């Protein structure tokens, strides 16, 4: 994987999504270049999470299309997204609470398996060697994110910050091309945020993974990202480098709240 | 996968069981009846009555000196009418009690009887299925240890058909009649359908069979069908809650209840009382009358309940159908024991010896008179080839308060049924690789 290339990895074209007539996202288009860190920002209810859900197929957009790695689709299915190398974390941690850290990370690698369940059940064929391979890779991810002391602990019993990291580890284990992070630093203190930013940057630099993230902390966003897309109220109101966005009057207005007041839909 | 905890439990269970089982050392002068009773669950009403009657009769026998001095003893094991509990009870109790050998098992449950049928044969312990059980076990040459005493399911329907013919003026009048059979949606309920078809062909009546799904608490569509069909008679092969619901639903569609004939599991007070007024006029078969007027019941009343030892929780049920069936069952078991003792000596006998007694059971009117059970028990003669013996029923009608007998003994057409039974038994023998006994060589 090379550094920034002019070809976009992901392009959203005119995406609209509504729930029972309530519009969550209205004709949004933007592109994410290969290798960049792109941040989606905007107030609560701006449609950021919905957009991530559209990208990896949890929600199906009513109109518009998604072009990912050269393939254009109207709907993305979750497994198509996963097979195409899109991994993600969730705003409200969606770990498998009844499993250990290691098992959670290993599930992230489920697409890298070649042996069938029958081979694995009978412990024949490729199963054994593959087990070791999977385990080694998972251990590398665990080391990378420094969660090895908790490897055998049940994730349900870990602290919030650690759970966020385990979730990231699970996403990373899939060796993704595109990583979607939904508020990876929510609820963290300054120290933890710093660590997490560092992890994200390392992932981007060392593994060459393209990252799309949602974050509220503007300071963190501006420092971390190459590209910022601003949403408000389901529409795109800004798109550009951190510098460009910072000077966009519409964005300033939205953040200062001079627009019509409207009860925000909680995400 | 570690068994340690379970093993610890097992050890504990073993210790506890030991206190109940392992003391089979000194031989007492007692004959033991293992009772796989059921006093709770959906069929508790039948179980409490039957086992109440059986136990009271045994107490009565003991109060009068036992069987030639051999006292009867028993213990109960609750099955809740559940097959595997019945099997567990069978295995637990089959070895006897405190040295008293087991005489026979009387589960009064089709499922348990089936599940213990092969075990009984292997263990040489007679299995008594009075009025029910596996029809082809009537053929004792294939089923030496199984006794569907008095009445097997085929005889039951045959007798009902004969009764209908009789009532309407002879068996020839059946031609062109419409008879509907409402049966419980289970193997028990279906068992007689094929025989009914044979009978329908033989006598020329038009047969409709209607299934009621288990448990039978909703029968509207079946009765609407009956209303459309307008059959001359409805035969009810019910079970548990299905019976009162059938009577109530009949009332709903305006079918005359006195043209419904209940079979052997639709003939008790418990089957009609819940239907209230709707049951008035309902006819059913019985192998024995209810009531308390028989000398043997008076004897039991005097020696058992009057002394405060009655087994029934509800004394009002003394003399009801299930109670009396228990008494009848007691009489048959004890008589078989007596006959076997005449051959093998007046001492506790093994199951194998008791089996011989059952096979040579011969109760004529004189003997029944002596027992104070004339009219209560039908004359019965068993043999190697015939483990049923009777095959006759009487008909009774519910008047809202009690059952009144409305017919004399009506005999099943056993000659017609015998070849079907033999064919079925032969098929079983073939499947199981059993060589049937040659009954002409038995004695």
């Amino acid at each position, binding site marked *: 994987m090379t550094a920034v290339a002019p070809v976009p990895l992901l392009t959203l074209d005119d995406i609209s999504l509504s*729930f029972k007539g309530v519009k969550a996202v209205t004709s949004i288009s933007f592109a994410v270049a290969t290798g960049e860190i792109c941040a989606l920002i905007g107030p609560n209810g701006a449609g950021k999470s919905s957009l991530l859900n559209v990208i990896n197929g949890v929600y199906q957009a009513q109109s518009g299309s998604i072009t990912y790695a050269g393939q254009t689709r109207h709907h993305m299915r979750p497994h198509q997204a996963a097979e195409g190398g899109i991994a993600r974390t969730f705003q409200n941690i969606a770990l498998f609470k009844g499993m250990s850290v290691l098992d959670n990370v290993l599930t992230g690698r489920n697409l890298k398996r070649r042996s069938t369940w029958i081979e694995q059940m009978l412990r024949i064929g490729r199963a054994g060697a593959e087990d070791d391979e999977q385990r080694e890779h998972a251990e590398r991810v665990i080391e990378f994110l420094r969660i090895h002391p908790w490897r055998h602990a049940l994730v349900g019993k870990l602290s919030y910050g650690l759970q966020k990291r385990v979730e990231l580890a699970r996403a990373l284990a899939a060796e993704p091309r595109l990583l979607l992070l939904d508020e990876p630093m929510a609820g963290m203190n300054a120290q933890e945020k710093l660590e997490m930013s560092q992890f994200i940057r390392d992932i981007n630099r060392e593994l060459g993974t393209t990252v799309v993230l949602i974050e509220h902390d503007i300071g963190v966003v501006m420092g971390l990202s190459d590209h910022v897309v601003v949403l408000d109220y389901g529409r795109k109101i800004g798109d550009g480098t951190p510098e460009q966005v910072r000077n966009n009057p519409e964005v300033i207005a939205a953040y200062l709240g001079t627009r019509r007041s409207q009860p925000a839909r909680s995400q | 996968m570690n068994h340690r905890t379970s093993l610890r439990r097992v050890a504990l269970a073993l210790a506890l069981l030991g206190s109940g089982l392992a003391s089979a050392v000194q031989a007492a002068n007692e004959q033991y009846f293992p009772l796989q009773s059921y006093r709770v*669950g959906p069929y508790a009403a039948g179980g409490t009555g039957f086992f109440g009657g059986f136990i009271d009769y045994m107490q009565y026998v003991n109060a009068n000196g036992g069987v030639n001095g051999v006292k009867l003893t028993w213990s109960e094991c609750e099955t809740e009418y559940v097959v595997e509990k019945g099997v567990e009870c069978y295995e637990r109790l089959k070895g006897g009690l405190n040295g008293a050998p087991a005489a026979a098992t009387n589960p009064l449950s089709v499922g348990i009887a089936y599940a213990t049928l092969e075990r009984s044969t292997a263990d040489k312990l007679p299995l008594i299925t009075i009025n029910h059980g596996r029809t082809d076990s009537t053929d004792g040459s294939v089923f030496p240890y199984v006794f569907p005493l008095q009445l097997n399911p085929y005889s039951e329907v045959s007798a009902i058909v004969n009764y209908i013919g009789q009532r309407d003026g002879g068996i020839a009048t059946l031609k062109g009649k419409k008879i509907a059979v409402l049966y419980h949606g289970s193997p028990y309920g279906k068992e007689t359908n094929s025989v009914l078809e044979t009978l329908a062909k033989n006598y020329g009546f038009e047969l409709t069979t209607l299934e009621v799904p288990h448990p039978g608490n909703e029968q509207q569509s079946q009765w609407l069908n009956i209303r459309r069909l307008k059959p001359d008679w409805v035969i009810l092969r019910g079970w548990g809650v299905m019976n009162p619901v059938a009577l109530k639903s009949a009332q709903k569609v*305006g079918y005359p209840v006195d043209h419904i004939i209940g079979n052997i599991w639709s003939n008790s007070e418990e089957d009609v009382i*819940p239907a209230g007024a709707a049951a008035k006029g309902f006819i059913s078969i019985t192998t024995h009358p209810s009531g308390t007027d028989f000398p043997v019941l008076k004897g039991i009343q005097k020696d058992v309940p009057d002394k405060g030892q009655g087994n029934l929780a509800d004394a009002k049920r003394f003399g009801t159908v299930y109670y009396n069936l228990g008494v009848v069952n007691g009489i048959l078991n004890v008589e078989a024991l007596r006959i076997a003792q005449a051959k093998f000596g007046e001492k506790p006998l093994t199951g194998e010896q008791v089996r011989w007694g059952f096979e040579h059971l011969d109760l004529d009117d004189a003997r029944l008179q002596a027992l104070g059970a004339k009219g209560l028990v039908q004359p019965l003669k068993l043999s190697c080839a015939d483990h049923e013996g009777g095959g006759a029923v009487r008909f009774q009608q519910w008047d809202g308060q009690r059952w009144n007998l409305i017919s004399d003994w009506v005999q099943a057409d056993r000659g017609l049924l015998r070849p079907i039974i033999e064919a079925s038994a032969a098929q079983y023998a073939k499947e199981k690789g059993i060589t049937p006994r040659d009954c002409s060589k038995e004695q």
Partner: protein
Amino acid sequence: MEFFFEVLIGGLLAGVMYSLVAIGFVLIYKASGVFNFAQGAMVLFAALTFVSLLERGLPFWGAFLVTLTSMVVLALLIERAVLRPLVNRPPIILFMATLGLSYMIEGLAQALWGAQVHGLELGIPDEPLEIHGMLISQFDLFAAGTAALLVIVLSFLFNRTRIGLSLRAVADDPLASLAVGIRLPRIWAVVWAAAGFVGLVAGLLWGARLGVQFSLSLVVLKALPVLIIGGFSSIGGAIVGGLIIGAAEKIAEIYLGPIIGSGIENWVPYVLALVFLLVRPAGLFGERAIERV
């Protein structure tokens, strides 16, 4: 054609009987999100207690009041001992707890009152009425009337009283209602008591229909497809679901039975419910929740 209508009407009336049991489920589901398998056992318990008291010489209303009181006490106990400790657990766990509960109540009912079969006469005539050559059961009409009355009483309770308002708030959003000071345990207790009352009414009517005995608790199996079709959270849905199931199973038994074999009433409602589920996963009147991630 006449016969068809007779079947249809009979089926609809039988369906009302199923609805009666289903309403009890809906109440509890609305308030606490529990699919209460023990409702059948509660019907049995109520009917058995009532009939046993009657047989011990209590007058009708006396027995009714005592039974109702015991149902309320039972409801309070359940709230205390089962629901409260299990709050915030997955619905499947709660469901399994009600399975255990149903065992307990069945065992308790029979331990207290014995296993005998009882007849129960409510004094409602059951000679069929003949209308245009169709026979219609008076008893079933009475039961339908009772169900209608019950629905009216319950909707009054929920739409016009404070407690009803709180209940609806709880059903909409338990967390928010907790925040505005609604006391969940009290709501639960009230709802379980109301479900006990519904169980008593259903127990009396079913008991009069079948006789009071163990298999009363099996009516729960008839109510489940009704709930699926009507949706778990709508009393109106329970009624409509009951009507659909009742009519469908009778028509199937009579017109389909001769073709594929009779005795299909046990599974037809389930297959029907399954088809409904695949088409409308939240039932006729329920709304499908949007999953948020």
